[in-house]
């Protein structure tokens, strides 16, 4: 089984890819997907720490509980976020962040 460092590095790599996507892309839906990637990277870190810490000989399930809640909150967030994006699209007919300049001075 790989060591903890490898898991943490892979998780950091996924987080970085998500961050890169949020900075590079201008399609708001894809930015949203990249946010999901970042959340998933955090989940991987939590599961790795949960497995590498032993409580009574078993993995520490507190970490996995937190992942459970992350997934639930992410699902709710996606539903609300996509509803907001649809309303935005109805109002402005665009999903590109650089065209949504209503508040720009």
């Amino acid at each position, binding site marked *: 089984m790989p060591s903890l460092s490898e898991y943490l590095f892979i998780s950091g790599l996924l987080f970085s890819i998500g961050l890169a996507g949020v900075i590079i892309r201008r399609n708001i839906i894809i930015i949203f997907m990249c946010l999901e*990637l970042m959340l998933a990277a955090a989940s991987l870190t939590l599961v790795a720490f949960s497995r590498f810490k032993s409580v*009574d*000989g078993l993995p520490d399930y507190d970490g996995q509980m937190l992942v459970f809640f992350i997934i639930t909150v992410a699902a709710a967030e*996606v539903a609300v976020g996509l509803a907001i994006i649809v309303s935005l699209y109805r109002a402005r007919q665009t999903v590109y962040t650089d065209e949504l300049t209503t508040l720009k001075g």
Partner: protein
Amino acid sequence: MISPLFYLFAALMVAGGLMVVFMRNPVASALSMVLSFVGLAGLFVGLNAYFVGILQVLVYAGAIMVLFIFIIMLMDLQKSDKDHWRGTSLAAGIAIPAILLIQLAGVLATVENSPKAPEIGFEQALKATDTEGELVYKEGTVIREKLEAGRLPDTHLIGKKLFTDYNFPLQVIAVLLLVATVGCVTLSKKSAAARVAVKANVRTISDDETQKDA
């Protein structure tokens, strides 16, 4: 010990993530996200977190991705010329994560002996007692039977934790989901003014048609 499966799933996950960022077509991006999460689920299973792995596939690949693709199709987003790469944001988007990653690699490289995963101690778990000296995993429970058989009852343990230690957060998360549902319905309802406008529009069109017929 080299673990080829770990590298396979990690490569799958990273490749999927890169495709999400660099695919021009939004639908292709959404499908790449599934690839990435399947790789991630494989890593979870490798970490003995079977339940969380399955949950990742069910919730993300089964529900969230479908929602994304539905919205993309609804808006009829095609590959567009407007989505070209701008030099500044591309440079920033590569430089900032690269700095983050180099820093992380530097920190991990200084760790002399990265911890190895402890073996799952079934015997130790069977003997575990709480503060009052009672057995944590009581006689006659499914968890105890499976532990005695040398298997990890992952889902049962998560259920036990969820309904004892995390009971209140579970109730709160239920309320959160309800609030999110109500919010979605509120957001996606058309306003009353828009409905009136649509009705008026329909009426004028039908009036025009009756005049034409006459």
